[in-house]
């Protein structure tokens, strides 16, 4: 058990616990906090994979801005505890073992697949400079398109958040 493997299992366990907590918590703010835990665990996994810029961007943008937006909206709308759902017990007793079996089957298939997924390359640290070069050379067109996308999103959010005009 190398140190990397231990760190991987700790972070992976944290992510899965966060995701389960997202499902089983009744109050949306607790779900939001669980999702933040998942994102921070994933940032740790990105660091383990050698992608340090992506890890930092994940925390700054995803966990630090998008989730803050979620938390602010939950606070603003005063979302309360969820109501009781009325599922059939049959669906739960049949569905959950089936889902677990499906996941186990997928996992076994992935684990038995070819040599490209055994990751024998040593983790080379991805430099910000390499990412920036790629972003501005090969991916410059999608990059400019995303700037338009953000502009459209800002305008959309502004329009949606307007108060109704009294006519």
């Amino acid at each position, binding site marked *: 058990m190398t140190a990397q493997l231990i760190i991987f299992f700790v972070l992976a366990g944290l992510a899965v616990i966060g995701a389960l907590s997202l499902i089983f918590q009744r109050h949306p*703010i607790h779900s939001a906090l669980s999702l933040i835990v998942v994102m921070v665990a994933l940032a740790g996994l990105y660091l383990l994979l050698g992608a340090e810029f992506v890890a930092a961007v994940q*925390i700054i943008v995803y966990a630090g801005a998008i989730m803050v937006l979620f938390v602010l909206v939950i606070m603003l709308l005063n979302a309360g505890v969820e109501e009781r759902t009325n599922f059939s017990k049959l669906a739960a007793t049949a569905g959950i073992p089936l889902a677990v079996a499906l996941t186990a089957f997928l996992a076994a298939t992935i684990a038995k697949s070819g040599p490209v997924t055994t990751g024998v390359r040593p983790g080379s640290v991805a430099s910000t400079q390499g990412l920036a070069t790629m972003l501005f050379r090969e991916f410059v067109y999608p990059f400019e398109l995303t700037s338009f996308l953000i502009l459209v999103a800002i305008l959309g959010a502004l329009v949606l958040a307007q108060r109704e005009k009294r006519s």
Partner: protein
Amino acid sequence: MSAFFAQHAFWIVTIVKIIVLLFVILTLDAYLTWFERKVVAHIQSRWGPYRVGPHGLLQPLADGLKFLFKEDPTPAGVDKFVYYLAPFLALSLALTSLAVIPFGPDPIRIFGYETNFGVADLNIGLLILYAITALGVYGVALAGWSSNSKYPLLGGLRSSAQMMSYELALTLSVVGVLLMANSFNLRDIIAAQGRHPNLGLLGWNIFPQILGFFCFFVAAVAETNRAPFDLPEAESELVAGFHTEYASFKFAMFFIAEYTSMVTVSCLCTILFFGGWLSPFPSGPIWGWTHFLPTVFLGALGLYLIWDGFHYETVFGRIVLPGIGTAFCALAALFALSPAVNAFIQGPFWFFSKVLVFLFVYVWVRGTLPRFRYDQLMAIGWKLLLPVSIGNVLLTSFAILKWGAS
């Protein structure tokens, strides 16, 4: 035993560094409160803490004891988990951000093990600082929400919106410095400013990046919810804002988090714009006497403490103060007599003096300027600082294209 130390030296040295850093920072925070109260008082033509120990020096101790012994009520109807999580989150994030700050030039040798002056030396140190600042919004937002009360909720919402808005200007205003230094590593940024040692003061980043520094400092003051931007926690506005419902120890945690983030921002200002641990004097042969400036300052401080202690009649004033003064004088003599120690102490001395200057500017701004109204605050963040910092990025990029990075 020594084999165990040798094998796990990295972990042991790191833990020792963390403990030392925590101790130093918490003491610094406590005396920062004293410093702030004294300075703001003198700005307002009064004396500040005066009776608790000579010059009020034992006031932080009294405040700390008060926080420990006060009753700690939990309001009814709060969301218990989030209520207890918020101050803990704020404090741990504020203290974690100190791990990536380098305090002096490398390396130092302890018992034959070579280590750096900071706790962690990361290649993306600056990005990690931003990540921790981004997560710091949660402490405030969750504290406001979980208190189950109107004023904290409003204060929390306003404060988190303010912090998010100024984060953008904060991140963008530093891009000029990053372009000049070509790295996110804080040590590289200081090294880039020390590229021309015969320039001394003029090689610092403040001169090319004066706009960036202005944006950074204003955004940082707003980000730490301090001085003229402290509407969400002001006492006369929102009944102390998002930490209304927090009593003794939890309030102390928010308090320490705020002062620690002040210290972190001051350290960042010195590292990014003022040369970090570099001396302001050029390093020519005629400037050799500047190596004795730490000695002179420390010796002067020690002599003043000794002289001042004789005024008092209490134990602390008569005995402890001159004792501390003598210790300072002895240290000053050690610096003067031993060139190895003198060379070792140069970097941290300049770093701490610059940090103290910035802390003084923080407190000065708090004592002098009136508070901004909330819409004025948001207008400054979005309509003034963001365009100015983007303009700074453009200007710096053109300048680097034309003249190269030095």
